[in-house]
């Protein structure tokens, strides 16, 4: 402070914030504070600091600049108002909307799609002009790019580029609206042609090129080299690249130039396959998906090169094979006993699938191939039973912003498209590509989940060693899922705890507590993914009741719902109810503290917010079959008794189910506790909806 070292604070607790209270002596007038921060970056690195003022006298923060102060403020206000009206576009122009009242004149904007962790646009518009006489500017037509993109929208002022990040999904009709052919085999062939030209630039895509072009093209080599670079430097997630590499050097070896083959073999011999081998990398070994892929890599590497001395461990390949096989078998044993620890995760199940497909194709042991077949069947069953209209619409053990908001862009959607002709073609191709070059075909789980008019189906499955109680209820028109009674009132990470999908396109909706303030930040929990403080949730068929008791130390003191108003046929606000209609699907959301639709900034038209730390929330789904009309649905719910008192919980007199009461960590209907028994294997019930 003013040139004197005032505080040294170095707890270095990786990715967990530490806090201290300090007194800073302020002189009269201008004072200067300098902060220096250091860290060892290991994979995802949460690197931030916050100074929160605890004094009572109002202060003025002053950013000194050479010039353009007023312009900087204007641009900040302008950028804060910017938003994309739709989270995902398939056609037309990409329109960036803004509040024209924030502009005093025209403003030159730069657009940059080269952001960390996201692919760049192939043919981007880099400069546009925003004008005060209109409220949007076109960033050009939706081109051929498929995926989720993070755009930096910026403008210069006072010699500084002021910019902010906005996320948008692109799934152009021209590229992705492929009519699925009747059989799995035909759809696999269609998909390989798509992957030849689209998707992540990794070794998996190179194999699709080999399948389609029957040769190793320069592009294929570029994709292999990108994966090989990750393996050679043992970067985090190298295991995602290494396991498919074994399929490349076996099935497609004749396509490979000899020097490239030798370089791959050399990288395999130098790789570190587990933490009992010396190393100084920061690869993450300890999640379910990573551990599995490391074990597979050790098993296959040892088998393929039994005489080789692996440099990290000093073991022969034969020893690596034996140890790797034991580890793979132990992983499967745990998996078949408990199921997925990262339950239903649309992000990480595809990583496990990489391992299953590669083992299914090249494992030297029939027992391992049998286990991978069983695991594939089990996984396709989970994906399909948790999908609605081909979109995985359930709760997730781990999720990210784009996993939730751009649900048609996640890999299980593409899997469902190949497997059953439902879902969507998209840019996530790592497991899909392996599925398509594999002989594996899943059972017809899509037939199990069919619901005709008036039918319903509910499933419950305890997953993982923690026996997380995942629940889902579906009709022909909607799907509503949650995790029942999961760690209520604890700080969250990436757990996505409830979700609704509505109508023939599976319009997504969820309620949670934001974990940070940045709308598209990289922390866990983030604004959209996970919960700062997790709620208590109980679900009974189409009714979900939520109790929020947010820790006052959390950064955000409101809850919110992801509500894409632009996709609804109709919505009605009635007192503290928000009623939504998507074709024949209806949903009513009740917030004890009321709510407000977000009408400015990045979340415009996609969010409702309810202020406060303590809340009762009701989420009730219905359809035309049960309620006859949207108007009757509204009257049926809005006319019922509903009450929330923090100490006495939430009570709702449901028009079908009776008086539903949740308090603290218990739930009852008409005074009787709601059954909460074990479901170690998936329990399935089906029935017929009652007319209300």
């Amino acid at each position, binding site marked *: 402070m003013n040139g004197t070292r005032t505080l040294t604070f170095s707890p270095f607790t990786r990715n967990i914030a530490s806090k201290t209270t300090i007194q800073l002596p302020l002189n009269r007038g201008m004072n200067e504070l300098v902060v220096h*921060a250091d860290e060892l970056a290991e994979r995802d690195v949460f690197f931030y600091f916050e100074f929160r003022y605890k004094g009572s006298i*109002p202060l003025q923060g002053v950013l000194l600049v050479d010039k353009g102060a007023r312009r900087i403020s204007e641009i900040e206000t302008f950028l804060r108002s910017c938003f994309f009206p739709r989270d995902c576009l398939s056609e037309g122009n990409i329109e960036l909307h803004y509040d024209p009242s924030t502009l005093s004149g025209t403003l030159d904007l730069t657009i940059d799609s080269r952001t960390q962790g996201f692919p760049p646009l192939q043919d981007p518009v880099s400069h546009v002009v925003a004008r005060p006489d209109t409220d949007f500017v076109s960033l050009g037509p939706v081109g051929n790019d498929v995926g989720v993109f993070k755009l930096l929208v910026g403008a210069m002022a006072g010699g500084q580029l002021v910019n902010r990040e906005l996320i948008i999904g692109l799934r152009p009709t021209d590229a992705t609206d492929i009519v699925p052919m009747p059989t799995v085999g035909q759809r696999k062939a269609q998909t390989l042609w798509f992957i030849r030209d689209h998707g992540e630039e990794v070794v998996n895509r190179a194999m699709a090129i080999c399948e389609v072009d029957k040769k190793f093209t320069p592009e294929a080599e570029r994709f292999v080299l990108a994966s090989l670079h990750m393996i050679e430097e043992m970067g985090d997630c190298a295991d995602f690249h290494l396991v498919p590499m074994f399929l490349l050097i076996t099935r497609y070896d004749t396509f490979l130039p000899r020097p490239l083959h030798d370089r791959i073999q050399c990288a395999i011999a130098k790789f570190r396959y587990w933490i009992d081998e010396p190393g100084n990398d920061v690869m993450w070994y300890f999640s379910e998906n990573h551990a599995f892929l490391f074990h597979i890599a050790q098993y296959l590497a040892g088998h393929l090169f039994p005489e080789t001395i692996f440099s990290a461990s000093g073991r022969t390949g034969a020893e690596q094979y034996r140890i790797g096989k034991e580890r793979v078998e132990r992983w499967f044993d745990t998996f078949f006993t408990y199921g997925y620890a990262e339950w239903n995760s649309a992000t990480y199940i595809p990583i496990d699938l990489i391992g299953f497909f590669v083992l299914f194709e090249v494992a030297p042991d029939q027992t391992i191939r049998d286990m991978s077949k069983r695991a594939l069947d089990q996984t396709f069953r989970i994906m399909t039973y948790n999908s609605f209209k081909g979109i995985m619409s359930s709760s997730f053990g781990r999720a990210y912003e784009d996993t939730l908001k751009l649900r048609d862009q996640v890999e299980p959607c593409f899997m469902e498209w190949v497997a059953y002709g439902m879902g969507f073609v998209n840019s996530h191709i790592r497991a899909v590509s392996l599925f398509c070059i594999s002989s594996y075909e899943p059972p017809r789980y899509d037939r199990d989940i069919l619901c005709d008019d008036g039918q319903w189906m509910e499933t419950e499955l305890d997953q993982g060693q923690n026996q997380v109680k995942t629940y889902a209820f579906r009709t022909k028109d909607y799907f509503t899922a949650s995790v029942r009674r999961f760690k209520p009132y604890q700080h969250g990470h990436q757990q996505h705890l409830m979700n609704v999908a509505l109508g023939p396109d599976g319009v997504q909706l969820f309620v949670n507590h934001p974990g940070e303030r940045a709308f598209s930040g*990289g922390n866990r929990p983030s604004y959209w993914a996970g919960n700062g403080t997790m709620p208590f949730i109980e679900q009974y068929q189409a009714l979900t009741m939520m109790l929020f008791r947010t820790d006052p130390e959390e950064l955000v003191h409101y809850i919110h719902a992801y509500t894409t108003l632009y996709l609804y046929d109709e919505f009605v606000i009635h007192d503290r109810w928000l009623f939504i209609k998507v074709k024949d699907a209806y949903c009513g959301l009740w917030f004890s503290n009321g709510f407000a639709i977000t009408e400015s900034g990045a979340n415009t038209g996609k969010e409702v917010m309810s202020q406060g730390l303590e809340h009762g929330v009701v989420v009730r789904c219905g359809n035309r079959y049960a309620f006859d009309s949207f108007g009757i649905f509204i009257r049926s719910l809005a006319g019922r008794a509903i009450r929330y008192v923090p100490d006495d919980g939430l009570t709702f007199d449901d028009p079908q189910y009776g008086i539903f009461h949740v308090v603290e960590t218990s739930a009852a209907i008409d005074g009787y506790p709601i059954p909460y028994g074990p479901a170690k294997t998936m329990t399935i019930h089906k029935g017929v909806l009652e007319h209300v």
Partner: protein
Amino acid sequence: MSSRKEHVSYGIGYDDSITRWWTTAVHRRPFESPQATFDAPVNMGEAYVQIVYPVRKAFLDQYDPDTRRMPKGPFDHIYFPFENNRVDFTTFIHTPPTISGSMPSPGLMSRKAEAIRSMSIHAEASHCG
């Protein structure tokens, strides 16, 4: 910093964050540590688990915050927070570098500066890293 003449100013009330800062670039330097084995269980849940790698132990062994010299710049980037309360450089890096960044603050003025000869800021500092 004092040669800069114009002000972008904003109010800071109780529990508000000081969010607009001049910053250096975030510097990365590869960190080499001895090759080592270690042991830790695989996470059988979905929640975050803290596992201290040998590379981190090596980093902490050689790191002495008291000997770190406060950098002199150049402070040529402005951090714009928008809705964020944090000064946030969160990212993803596949291999282990050390990263560091420095930020001299905005000036801090009491709105009643003319009437106050000196005062203290009572603040909570949170840091992740």
